[in-house]
Every structure is written in structure tokens, then in C-alpha cells.
């Protein structure tokens, strides 16, 4: 009973165990719900899912299982082509569009998609409701289905009212989305977790003994204050140029980190790290700080966090004089190496979509320079980065 459903939920990567399945069966046995699919949805979600970040996956699994394969026959003729196209274009970024052009343009791509859909229909007898989630489709890579746009839902012959799980209200709570207004706080929490390493208030044993002795043997308890956060952070922000696209998320990260650490120093750089950094972007020409001075000032136990998209010409990193702003005597990678040699822990947070990383040579070079410790600037990425910093 319910084993197929349970497997489906697990297929969608909702973490749940046998224990929860047994609970669910017991709930049904006890008659918590009876003959109502909506109630069953609520109860099964309550029991199987333990984090709102997984609600969206659960909704998809639920829809897949219950409306599933049989209920929707996808008829290609029902989808007007320009509707598809419009949707397409709305979803694509400039780079993606360029990439599609390289693959023979949107029309070519649409043709391939149409073929693929037909094939899929034959193979699955009735077609799959979720086009593009199969993982074999090349279209996924182009961000065509970043949020699981359902082609053909509106045109479906099944004009049923949208169900709760079909609304996918919890889409935004998925841990892979980029840091947003609401998620800012969650990011803060992850940082706080690694900030509070000290233990709570303790008994100061030595002082208590001494004080008690002075007090003629009558107890005199002395307490030590709580230990404070000892973590020191050094941040380097890439600013200007291609980073303008990511300004909001960086601002949010900045304010989140700012409130969290007592020992926080930050510097700006442009594209790649060279001999100079600066603290105030308005006076970047006049008040430069020698990077060597930074290296000599801050001890190696400072945790270094780079924030930048690392999207530039590869020569900006690897050649002397590669900088777009000034003549640099030594190449960017020399300076990066100096820095990573000096500090124990260095990570790089990249606001650029992780799926696009492999297409930029500069990102790969930079990733190598920070010992592969480059993480996307998403909640999940930040979490991984923090783990690498401890």
C-alpha cells in the first residue's frame, strides 16, 4: 500500500524514510483522512516532508503520481508555436540567446523540440506531462525549463481546476533559488551557525576556588562570560562591469555579512585581483591599497571570501598587462596565488548561474586558482562555502 507513491516521492528527491511511510499508513488506518484527495495531500505532506524547501518537489511528485501519465495526452497541434516561442524568449538571458544562435537559431531548436516531443509521446504512450524534466532533453540546459514551465497545461483537454499541488506555491522556497529578499535572513542564519563556535557561559573553576578560599570556605561562585565569536573575515568584492547584473544579490549578502561579524574587513577589486585593491569605490583612483600591505596586515587565520562573477577574458588573469583598467606588471594569477598561499581558507562565491560556468574559460581558471572552492551565490552554495571555510 502506497509503496509506489512513496517511491515516486523519493524519486523526486524528497528525503523521507521508511519510518515516515509507516507513519502515513498508520495515519490512514486511524482514519485521520478518509476519501478525500485534498486531505490526503495535506496529511501525506505533513508526514513525509520535513522542510518547506522540499514542498515544491513533493508537489511535483504528487502531481506526477496522481494526475500522472494517463490523464494528459499531449497533442502537439494544441500548442501554438508562437506561444511556445514567446515563452521561450521570456525565459532566456542574453548569453543563452547567443548560445542558441550558435546552435542554429531558435527555429532549428524548436524543430528539434517538436521531434523530441513526438518521440516522447510514442515511447510513453500518452506522453509525459513534464516535458524537459527527463534529463535527456538538451533543452533543459538552456534554462528553458528552469522552473518547470509546463508546456501545454493551459491547452490541456483536461479543464480541471488547478489543484494545490499544481499551483506549486512553494517553488520559491527551494534551496537552489538565488538569494532573494526573504532568503536574505536564511543566508544570515547559515553564517551565524558558523560564527557561534564558542561555548555558552561556564563556571570559572579556578576563580571560584580562590574566591571560596578567601571567603573562609563559604562558597562564592564565579562565572566566566560567554566566549565570543572568534571568526575573522576578509571579503573581496568584484565591482562594476558585468557585476552590475548581480548588484542586488551582492548588496544583500553584504548587509547580511556586515551585521554578523565583529572582525570583518572588505575590499573591492575589478574583475581580477591585481596589486591594488580599494575600500571606497568612489575614490578608487585616489585611495588604492597595496595588496601586499593587505597580506602583511591580516593574519593567515582570516577567512577570505571572494564575491565575483569571474567572467572576463582569460588573458585578464593569466598575462601581465591583461587588466582592462591599468597596466599590471604581474599577471592576476600571480597575485591570486600569493593570496591563497598566505591565507588558510579561501572561497569564491559566484553570482553567475552555475550551469553556465563551464562555458567561461575565465571561471575555470579562477576556480583552479582557489583550489576548486568556488560556489554559486545561492543559499545552497553559501552553505557549502561556509562548510569549506570552517
Amino acid at each position, binding site marked *: 500500500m502506497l509503496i509506489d507513491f512513496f517511491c515516486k516521492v523519493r524519486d523526486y528527491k524528497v528525503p523521507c524514510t521508511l519510518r515516515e511511510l509507516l*507513519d502515513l499508513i498508520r495515519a490512514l488506518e486511524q482514519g*485521520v483522512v478518509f476519501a478525500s484527495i485534498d486531505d490526503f495531500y*495535506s*496529511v501525506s505532506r*505533513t508526514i513525509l516532508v520535513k*522542510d518547506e524547501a522540499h514542498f515544491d518537489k513533493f508537489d511535483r511528485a504528487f502531481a506526477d503520481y496522481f494526475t500522472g501519465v494517463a490523464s494528459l495526452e499531449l497533442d502537439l497541434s494544441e500548442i501554438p508555436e508562437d506561444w511556445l516561442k514567446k515563452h521561450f524568449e521570456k525565459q532566456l538571458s542574453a548569453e543563452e540567446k547567443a548560445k542558441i544562435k550558435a546552435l542554429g537559431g531558435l527555429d532549428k531548436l524548436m524543430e528539434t523540440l517538436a521531434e523530441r516531443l513526438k518521440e516522447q509521446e510514442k515511447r510513453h504512450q500518452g506522453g509525459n506531462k513534464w516535458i524537459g524534466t527527463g534529463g535527456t532533453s538538451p533543452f533543459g540546459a538552456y534554462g528553458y525549463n528552469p522552473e518547470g514551465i509546463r508546456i501545454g497545461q493551459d491547452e490541456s483537454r483536461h479543464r480541471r481546476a488547478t489543484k494545490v499541488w499544481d499551483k506549486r506555491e512553494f517553488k520559491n522556497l527551494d534551496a537552489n533559488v538565488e538569494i532573494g529578499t*526573504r532568503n536574505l535572513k*536564511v543566508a544570515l542564519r547559515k553564517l551565524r551557525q558558523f560564527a557561534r563556535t564558542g561555548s555558552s*557561559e561556564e563556571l570559572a573553576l579556578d576563580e571560584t576556588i580562590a574566591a571560596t578560599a578567601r571567603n573562609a570556605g563559604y562558597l562564592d561562585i564565579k562565572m566566566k562570560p560567554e566566549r565570543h565569536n572568534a571568526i575573522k573575515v576578509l571579503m573581496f568584492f568584484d565591482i562594476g562591469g558585468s557585476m552590475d547584473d548581480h548588484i542586488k544579490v551582492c548588496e544583500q549578502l553584504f548587509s547580511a555579512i556586515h551585521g554578523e561579524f565583529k572582525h570583518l574587513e572588505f575590499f573591492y577589486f575589478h574583475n581580477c585581483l591585481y596589486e591594488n585593491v580599494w575600500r571606497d569605490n568612489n575614490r578608487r583612483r585616489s585611495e588604492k591599497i597595496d595588496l601586499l600591505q593587505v597580506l602583511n596586515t591580516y593574519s593567515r587565520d582570516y577567512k577570505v571570501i571572494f564575491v565575483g562573477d569571474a567572467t572576463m577574458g582569460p588573458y585578464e588573469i593569466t598575462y601581465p598587462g591583461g587588466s582592462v583598467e591599468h597596466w599590471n606588471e604581474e599577471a592576476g594569477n600571480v597575485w591570486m596565488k600569493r593570496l591563497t598561499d598566505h591565507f588558510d581558507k579561501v572561497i569564491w562565491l559566484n553570482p553567475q548561474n552555475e550551469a553556465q560556468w563551464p562555458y567561461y574559460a575565465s571561471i575555470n581558471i579562477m576556480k583552479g586558482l582557489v583550489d576548486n572552492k568556488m560556489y554559486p551565490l545561492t543559499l545552497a552554495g553559501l552553505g557549502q562555502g561556509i562548510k569549506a571555510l570552517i
Partner: protein
Amino acid sequence: MSAFQGTSNYIASNELQLAVNAAIALERPLLIKGEPGTGKTMLAEELAASLGVELIPWHIKSTTKAQQGLYEYDAVSRLRDSQLGDEKVKDIGNYIIKGKLWHAFTSDNRPVLLIDEIDKADIEFPNDLLLELDKMEFFVYETQEKIVAKQRPIIIITSNNEKELPDAFLRRCFFHYIRFPEKTEMQAIVDVHFPKIKQKLLDEALALFFNLRDMPGLKKKPSTSELIDWLKLLLAEDISPEVLHETRQKKVIPPLHGALLKNEQDVHLFEKLAFMHRGQR
């Protein structure tokens, strides 16, 4: 035990009712998450009231230890008493202070135990309670006695998501996320709190409130509890619906906004947007 259906001053969504009833029937702790101000703590209070049983609240702080929920051995006062030659000293039981879980386990009626804001505690806190929540029993080493729950209390745990809870702990709980209510649900909630509020005022206030929540870039979105506070103020100050309507049309900052926007940056942002809006016209 009858099913929970919300109370005269607490509107519980159908999903929430089901979650609560499943947790009661299967005797599992229910973990409640949601935006601040959506009534997580209130749920436990109202649940206890509707079932007519005792509520045992245990508010968690960053210094709270799991052991404090079971019992504490007050060694310091025993030492002090021994120096004063008090007779009490001979029985160690005099220095065992019962914790909230102990009270809940030994209560005569099946009580509601609220573990409030569990995410505030140390990371190890939930792990330290695994066995106690599972088996509903624990052992007091000092007196060598075993405390077993007479009946399993209804346990409501709230979290604001400040820390992730360990998997092993989550496996033992049921989970419900209180979604932010929609406009019609909001209306029902407000009706419960202010039965005599004028319909027109309420419509205007709700429209303003949801506009405000939709505004991008707010650091702290106002939530249900803020709305209710704000309505209280509007009623107390006797602000007319026309004023609110005008406010919404002109997009100026609403009267008594201090109850809704709790952050001066948000107020500033709102003023800036309002100014830009006026500039366009």
C-alpha cells in the same frame, strides 16, 4: 478526544487542522514553521484551550539546555545548605528541580507541551531530546528513578528557521508550514479579532496591507500580527476609510505606519517610491 477545528479566536486552515489531528492521533510531535507573526505560538495556546487541557510552555533561548527540560540538580544550594547544617540536605530529592517535560509527562490530563522557538537553542539541543520525545521517558541518575509518561503529551514545536534541525530529529516529527494567508482567509482572521469593524474600513485596510506586502525590496514584510495591531490602532484613532482610500490612491505612506513597517530603511524606501510615483503624475 475530539478533532481540532480552530477556535472562536483562532482560524486554522484545513491543512493545519489535518496536521494537528494527525499529530494528536499518531502521538507525534508537530513541528510548525512559517513567517514570523503567522500564529505559530498561538496555535498551541488555542489548541490547549479548545481541548480544555493544560498548556505547558517551554520557551527556548540560546542558553537553554535539553537537560533543563527534564530536571536540574541544584548542587549549589545543596552545598550551601550543607554548610548551614540544614536537615533537608540528607535527601537529594529536595534538590531535584523538575523541568517542563517532567511536568508534561506526569500531568493527569494529556497536556499540550509547547517547545517554542527550538531553533534558538544550541545545535545539539534537538539531538539531546531524541530519546525523550520518542520513548517519552527518561532516567534521573541522582535519585535512580525512571520517569515514564502517564500519557504522551501533545507536543507542538515552533521554529523560525534560524538553524537547520538535524535529520534524526525531523524524522520523529510531523511538519507543517504555515503559509501566509490569502485575502479571504485574512478577512476571516480579522473578523475573529474585530467583530464590529466596519466593512469598508477593513476592505481599504486589507488592500493597503497587501499592496505593502507586495512592495519589492522590503526588509521585513508586515505579517498577520502586525495587521491586527495596526487595525487596533486605526480603530482607536478612529481613522475613516476615506482617508485610507485616499492614501492608497496617492500612494503616500499610510497613517500609523509604525505598526506595519518596523524598519526605518523600509519606511524610507516607501517614501522614496511614493515620491517617485508623485513625480510621474
